[in-house]
């Protein structure tokens, strides 16, 4: 509707990783699983289309995304992206204070990076924070990609941030930071290992459209995390 850009109540999660780009059309469900995967596609990023999260061939990446959206008539859907790769510096830092400022973190801060943090769990009278840094240059590339592709983007987040949101969603009211601490310590803060195909099946109904679930699981988990973190209904 002029002059408002059109948007509909659809959600597409885009995960961008060093060699793959996935697009997932996810809906809320009233059935056994909380979410429904309406469409999913994984695009291979070869020939240096994407290297260290730097877009060397944005035209191709834009075409992949637009193709998926056009195929499923999702041109006006809400889009959320997750980034994962060596250019993003991610750490789990123990701090003495539960309410730090940006200056509290003993990281090499530069104006070229965006710094973000999130409290995860307590451990031995310390507070473990998830801290991430993203280079401004890389983020600018993705912003330009969003503008060029005319996407109604509502978020760009690191992959682990999306997975943390999914973990909280999975436990719902039973979520406890102490339990998260136990799980994280068990898997050495590798949050990807907290999930398995059984949990994924509880979260999202894939309707047997995906044959090799284990291969697609990291991307689907991230997509689900993006959906639940944005509070789309």
């Amino acid at each position, binding site marked *: *509707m002029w002059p*408002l850009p059109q*948007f509909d109540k659809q959600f597409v999660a885009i995960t961008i990783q060093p060699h793959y780009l996935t697009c997932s059309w996810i809906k809320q469900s009233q059935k056994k699983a909380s979410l429904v995967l309406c469409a999913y596609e994984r695009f291979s990023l070869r020939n240096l289309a994407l290297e260290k999260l730097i877009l060397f061939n944005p035209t191709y990446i834009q075409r992949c995304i637009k193709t998926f959206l056009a195929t499923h008539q999702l041109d006006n859907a*809400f889009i959320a992206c997750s*980034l994962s790769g060596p250019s993003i510096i991610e750490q789990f830092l123990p701090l003495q204070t539960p309410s730090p400022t940006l200056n509290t973190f003993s990281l090499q801060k530069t104006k070229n990076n*965006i710094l*973000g943090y*999130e409290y995860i769990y307590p451990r031995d009278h310390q507070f473990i924070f998830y801290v*991430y840094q*993203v280079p401004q240059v890389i*983020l600018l590339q993705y*912003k330009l990609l969003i503008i060029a592709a005319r996407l*109604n*983007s*509502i*978020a*760009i*987040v*690191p992959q682990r*941030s999306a997975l*943390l*949101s999914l973990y*909280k969603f999975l436990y719902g009211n039973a979520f406890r930071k102490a339990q998260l601490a136990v799980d994280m310590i068990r898997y050495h803060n590798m949050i990807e290992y907290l999930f398995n195909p059984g949990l994924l099946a509880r979260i999202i109904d894939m309707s047997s459209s995906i044959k090799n679930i284990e291969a697609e699981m990291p991307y689907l988990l991230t997509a689900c995390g993006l959906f639940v*973190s*944005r*509070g*789309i209904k």
Partner: protein
Amino acid sequence: MKKNNLIKTLSPAQQYAIKRWFIISLFLSSITIVIIIAFEIPQIYALQSIKKENTALAIQTESFNSIIDQQNKLKKKEQDYKEKQAEITKYKDELISLITHLSTVVQASNPACNIESLHIKPNSIELVAYCTQIQNATNCLDRLVESKQFHDTELTSLQHQTKQNSSFLFTIKGQR
């Protein structure tokens, strides 16, 4: 867990809120415009009708201009004529008045008095006449007073003419 986001965007809830606000604003604006139009259109229509009527009447009355000019000229002429007529009437009335006064004076002086001179001025009259007896002069004065055409009429002088001639010369003055 807080919502991390590397870009500043409008959340879906904010976008829906903006859309709702826009639709409600558009709806209310449309209603306002419709109401204004509903009130204004009859007036505009009336104005247009009056303009059309005025134009039609202007076309119809184009030939009237020469007539109106002629009428104005004639009215001016009429006014001039009326002024002239008024002047003529005034002179005529003065003349009639003069004749009346003259005849009155002549009748008043007859038959015993001989008029020597008579000055009729716009506001006054002066009669000089001869009479054989004084009584004739007073009679003449009485008759002039009775005629009511003069006021403040009075006998201003009365004198014996000569020893050989026993007539009297008297003067009567009055106001017209």
